[in-house]
């Protein structure tokens, strides 16, 4: 019996081995790999990212591809598991022989595969936020979301102009939340702002009144919440319930109309820095990003029937940057694409105007963000 059993292993693996070899290989297509957390705990990020990437590739292929060559996008769903991201990135590099990889969605996964991309010399354009992804600069690793430090600085400079001195910070216990909390703590002294209390909470927390009571007792002038869903709609609701009337600042993770809807009337007056995607239509006509933003927004919303989010925008930037690099590359190989990526300059994306350099693989400046607020249930400029 055991012999048969072991035979089964052989048979099973043979099937898999042969099965993968039966795949049709199309000559001339450009393969781009993507790792997104489409399901699992970070699906708020990964799902719109994957949808965006699919949509963009469809559009490009419908328009004749890149110089007549079609793009083949291979999306892998890591469910935000680093070990899966590691397995997938090796698969994409070696087996699928992709030209470049976009994603992953979370900082934790990106940090785990950063060195792999670097040592196998495959361009990786991450849609995750942590600064450690591009610091130290790995020559093959890029990222599209704005730096957390910019967000922190924007929040603090706005606070300064509002005369806020003493703040409380709450952050979700995710890579995103922890990194943000770190940046806030790092830059607060530069702006003369005192952090009375900084706490993290579970990302799936559903009631934060106890935590906010702790903050309320510290008599803070303002609260900063750094999280992705669901907490960014719970914090404003809980604050109003507790009768906390101090201003609430949020991170750029608030960038989705759905969250205003979920927080309802409590969302009014929330202040947060974000890319211009959320206020695309409200931008003045001369803005260099406006065309890109409105086009993406319209395309996404009509195709999927849901509001755009800045997260999807990060994937849009990632794939568009790679496409732009392929167009500009002297030779269409990994080395060529990397070099072309690094020399991209003044490229309008959803996150801002990208200008990469050998020392800057994020390519965005402070001006990539805009202070926004919620007015009458809509995102609007703060000023």
């Amino acid at each position: 019996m055991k012999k048969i059993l072991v035979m089964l292993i052989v048979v099973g693996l043979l099937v898999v081995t042969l099965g993968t070899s039966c795949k049709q290989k199309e000559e001339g297509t450009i393969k781009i790999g993507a790792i997104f957390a489409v399901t699992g705990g970070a699906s708020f990020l990964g799902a719109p990212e994957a949808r965006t990437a699919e949509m963009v590739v469809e559009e490009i292929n419908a328009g004749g591809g890149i110089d007549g060559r079609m793009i083949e996008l291979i999306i892998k769903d890591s469910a935000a598991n680093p070990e899966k991201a590691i397995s997938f990135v090796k698969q994409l590099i070696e087996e699928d022989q992709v030209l470049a990889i976009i994603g992953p969605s979370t900082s934790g996964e990106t940090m785990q595969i950063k060195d792999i991309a670097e040592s196998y010399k495959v361009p990786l354009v991450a849609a995750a936020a942590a600064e450690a992804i591009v610091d130290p600069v790995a020559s093959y690793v890029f990222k599209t979301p704005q730096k957390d430090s910019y967000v922190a600085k924007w929040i603090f400079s706005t606070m300064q102009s509002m005369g806020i001195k003493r703040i409380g910070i709450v952050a979700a216990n995710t890579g995103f939340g922890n990194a943000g909390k770190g940046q806030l703590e790092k830059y607060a002294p530069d702006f003369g702002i005192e952090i009375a209390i900084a706490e993290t909470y579970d990302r799936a927390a559903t009631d934060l009144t106890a935590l906010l009571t702790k903050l309320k007792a510290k008599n803070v002038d303002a609260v900063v919440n750094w999280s992705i869903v669901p907490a960014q709609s719970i914090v404003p609701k809980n604050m109003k319930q507790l009768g906390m009337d101090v201003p609430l600042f949020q991170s750029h993770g608030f960038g989705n109309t759905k969250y205003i809807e979920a927080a309802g009337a409590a969302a009014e007056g929330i202040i947060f820095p974000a890319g211009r995607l959320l206020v695309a239509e409200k931008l003045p006509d001369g803005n260099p990003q406006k065309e890109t933003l409105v086009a993406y927004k319209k395309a996404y919303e009509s195709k999927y029937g849901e509001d755009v989010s800045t997260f999807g925008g990060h994937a849009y930037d990632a794939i568009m940057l790679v496409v732009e690099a392929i167009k500009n590359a002297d030779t269409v190989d990994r080395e060529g694409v990397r070099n072309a990526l690094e020399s991209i300059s003044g490229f309008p994306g959803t996150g801002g105007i990208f200008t990469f350099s050998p020392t800057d693989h994020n390519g965005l400046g402070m001006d990539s963000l805009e202070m926004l607020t919620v007015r009458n249930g809509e995102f609007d400029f703060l000023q």
Partner: protein
Amino acid sequence: MSAEQILQYIFAGITVGSIYAFVAIGYNIIYNATGIINFAQGEFVMLGGMIAYTFSQYMPLLPAIILAVIITSAIGGLIESVFIRRMKKNSVLGMIVVTIGISILLREASLYVWDEQIRALRFFTGSEISSVNIFGARISPQVLWVLGVTIVLVIVMFLFFKFTLTGQAMRACSENSRAAKLCGIRTDSMVNLSFMLSAGIGALGGCVVSPLTQTHYAMGTDLAIKGFIVAILGGLGNATAAVAAGILLGLIESFSISILPMAYKDVVSIVILLVILLVKPSGIFGSVQASSMKDY
């Protein structure tokens, strides 16, 4: 800590505790009828909120909630008749594994039926920004709804199990299902009813807390774990004690936040659970004599 603050922590604890209690009551009903723990209980809460939200787009809140409760309890009944009843080997291990499997399936299915977005039902009274002042502490009117529904539920459950024929029959099943069968009680339909009932209660809970906590496809697992802790704390099978244990756990968690970093909140509750399990597995409100007759 000022008096207002202490009161505020108490309210926070009671709010969270009532949510746990909803899940734990569901556990107890099924446990009483079948002796198994249904790990998919948290998913019923999620389904209730999701379905009610979808209907509330087209109709007023009350009929949407009623529909959600009915549909979810139908799903509960369906799960029993399709999966649980057909289990070949009725072992505890098998039941744990199969209900975990069902919970995964319900979760994944709702990811495809709806999506990964969060949803929140409208507030029953007032809105997101209204709050009620009680002795200096302030709470959302929705918290009062949660408390009210919990209290009504406990009373109704008590009356149902004590005075209605069906309720008595269900209790008989849990005492001794063979004897109940001999007395002419249809144990199969009692088990089915218990699944429908607990799914319905879970769904109702999901609707009442949705404005506060929001509803999301993956919320069930955490609730299931917390509800299980509460059910054991109170003593498996005892619905009233589950409510008390739920509120107790909510209070402990809420006050632990005032001293410890919130990141370790769950560690506190689980350590308490482990201690209770080892010292008094019958639960803090369970009787020691009764527990010595049971097999832990």
